[in-house]
């Protein structure tokens, strides 16, 4: 990778949050948004030598060849123009078929699906479409790093909901305790980044009931839906009374290993998808065209590759869990995404992660980065080949013994 690539922002937050003397008066909302803690670790990891990284939030596979081939073919055919604002009709039809078959979700490709530039864009336009200044958005803690800044940019307030200590799940009790009954929106990601936690049907139904009772709409980031192990993913939109108050987000980054192609989709009732599209059509016009061709092919012919990747993640998951157990680092059995979330000895995750990096040559992200609820934990990504995982776990073992 070139230096130029390396210097890029990993999370879009840029190096500084402070406005400096210059011609531009940096806006209040940007100044109020701190740079992500991920960045500091990225820089530390880049400085260190011979590092095995368990800090990567994307698959180590490449997109299935058939999907890449379709993208190449579309370029050869000269298909480099904009698509429809909402995405190619053919792609929306494939998405509708796919989510029906996989998750029992029924959406009309013409009115209820919007193809976006990654789920990131989908969540951004959805927040801006439904949040008015002063509205409150409830998010679980710990959670993915982009939600709070997204809410701030949309002019909303954040309400953090602590998740359960054993399984990092949302409960109506914790929601009530945190004051989420007064909130307007619930935004979450399950299977979860950073914990690997999932929400089984029963627990999800309790959250759904809370949302109906207190009139919250739900933005459900289900980007890791395909990556569950031994337990099927349940979409909240399939629960009674939830379809009309939910936007479901999914995409191609994780299951199809297409992170860099930036393609996702939002699904919801016509009026809210229309509202999202209003922002999308002015700010993005359309999601990138080439990836849309890759995505059509991915949905049509790459189920086997996805299954193989899921099986491989599962094996690594079991390997890593078994090693952490052996090392005596408490770690709940994460059943989703490609993360496990062990407790660090001593409880100071930042210090542990930094030492692990400098002393043992293993990079992993301290849980604090994802919110106070992640304190004392380490996000360990197993989106890395087994040989590297083995070596990394051996290094952690040696470090713990030293």
């Amino acid at each position, binding site marked *: 990778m070139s230096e130029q690539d*390396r210097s890029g922002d990993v*999370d879009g937050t840029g190096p500084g949050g402070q406005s400096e003397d210059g011609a531009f008066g940096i806006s209040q909302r940007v100044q109020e948004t701190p740079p992500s803690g*991920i960045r500091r670790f990225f820089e530390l990891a880049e400085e260190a030598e011979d590092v095995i990284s368990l800090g*990567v*939030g*994307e698959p*180590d596979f490449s997109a299935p060849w058939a999907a890449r081939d379709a993208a190449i073919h579309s370029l050869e055919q000269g298909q480099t123009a904009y698509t429809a604002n909402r995405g190619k009709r053919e792609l929306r039809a494939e998405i509708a078929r796919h989510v029906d078959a996989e998750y029992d979700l029924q959406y009309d490709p013409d009115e209820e699906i919007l193809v976006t530039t990654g789920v990131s864009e989908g969540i951004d336009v959805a927040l801006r479409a439904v949040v008015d200044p002063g509205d409150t958005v409830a998010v679980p803690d710990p959670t993915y790093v982009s939600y709070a800044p997204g809410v701030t940019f949309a002019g909303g307030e954040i309400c953090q909901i602590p998740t359960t200590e054993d399984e990092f799940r949302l409960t109506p009790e914790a929601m009530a305790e945190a004051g989420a009954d007064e909130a307007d929106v619930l935004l979450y990601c399950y299977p979860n980044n950073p914990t690997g936690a999932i929400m089984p049907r029963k627990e999800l139904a309790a959250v759904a009931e809370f949302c109906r009772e207190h009139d919250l709409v739900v933005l459900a980031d289900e980007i890791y839906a395909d990556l569950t192990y031994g337990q099927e993913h349940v979409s909240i939109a399939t629960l009674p009374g939830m379809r009309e108050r939910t936007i479901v987000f999914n995409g191609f980054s994780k299951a199809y290993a297409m992170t860099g192609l930036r393609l996702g989709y939002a699904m919801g009732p016509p009026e809210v998808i229309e509202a999202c599209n209003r922002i999308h059509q002015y700010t993005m016009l359309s999601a990138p065209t080439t990836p849309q061709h890759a995505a059509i092919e991915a949905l049509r012919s790459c189920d086997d590759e996805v299954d193989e990747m899921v099986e491989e993640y599962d094996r690594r998951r079991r*390997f890593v869990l*078994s090693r952490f157990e052996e090392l005596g680092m408490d770690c709940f059995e994460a059943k989703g995404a490609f993360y496990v979330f062990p407790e660090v000895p001593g409880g100071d995750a930042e210090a542990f992660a930094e030492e692990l990096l400098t002393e043992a040559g293993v990079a992993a992200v301290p849980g604090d980065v994802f919110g106070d609820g992640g304190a004392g934990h380490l996000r360990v990504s197993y989106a890395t080949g087994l040989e590297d995982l083995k070596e990394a776990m051996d290094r952690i073992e040696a470090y713990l013994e030293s």
Partner: protein
Amino acid sequence: MPALAPTICMNERELLDLLLADARRSTEDLARMLDADEAAVDDAIERLEEDGVVGGYQAVVDWGEVDEERVVALVELNVTLDRETSYADIAERLARFPEVQTLQLVSGDYDFDMRVEGDSMREVSRFISDKVAPVPEITQTVTHYVMDTYKDRGVNFGDGDDDDRLSVSP
């Protein structure tokens, strides 16, 4: 009653997948990945071997990277059968030669597809003309010498995909 093929239970199927991907993994690692005891994994491997499900383990070698001549030929064979001679009989006779690496009965224009390896073209040619062609049931041989191998048994011989991901990302 004909002998039934040995049944493979679910866990053994997954074990097979792991061995197919990399047969050199340690029993300890296999056990972790399968969430099973090491002893159970050892037993299962032994059973698979005894039942003839797993016939052997081999390295996939890219001979192009080795400073040594290695010749591979794919040979199409046509045969005629009679009341006393079956495909299996002919196959058994051919398979005994160590030069024959793979032998398969195939559909289409010819009967057997045979992969032969040797240290030189001369050696392989001589083997086919002296040992294979004279077999009475064999009516025709067509030999294709392999000029380059790009992928063998699922292993790509080209440059691997470099990991170009950022070392830490959200």
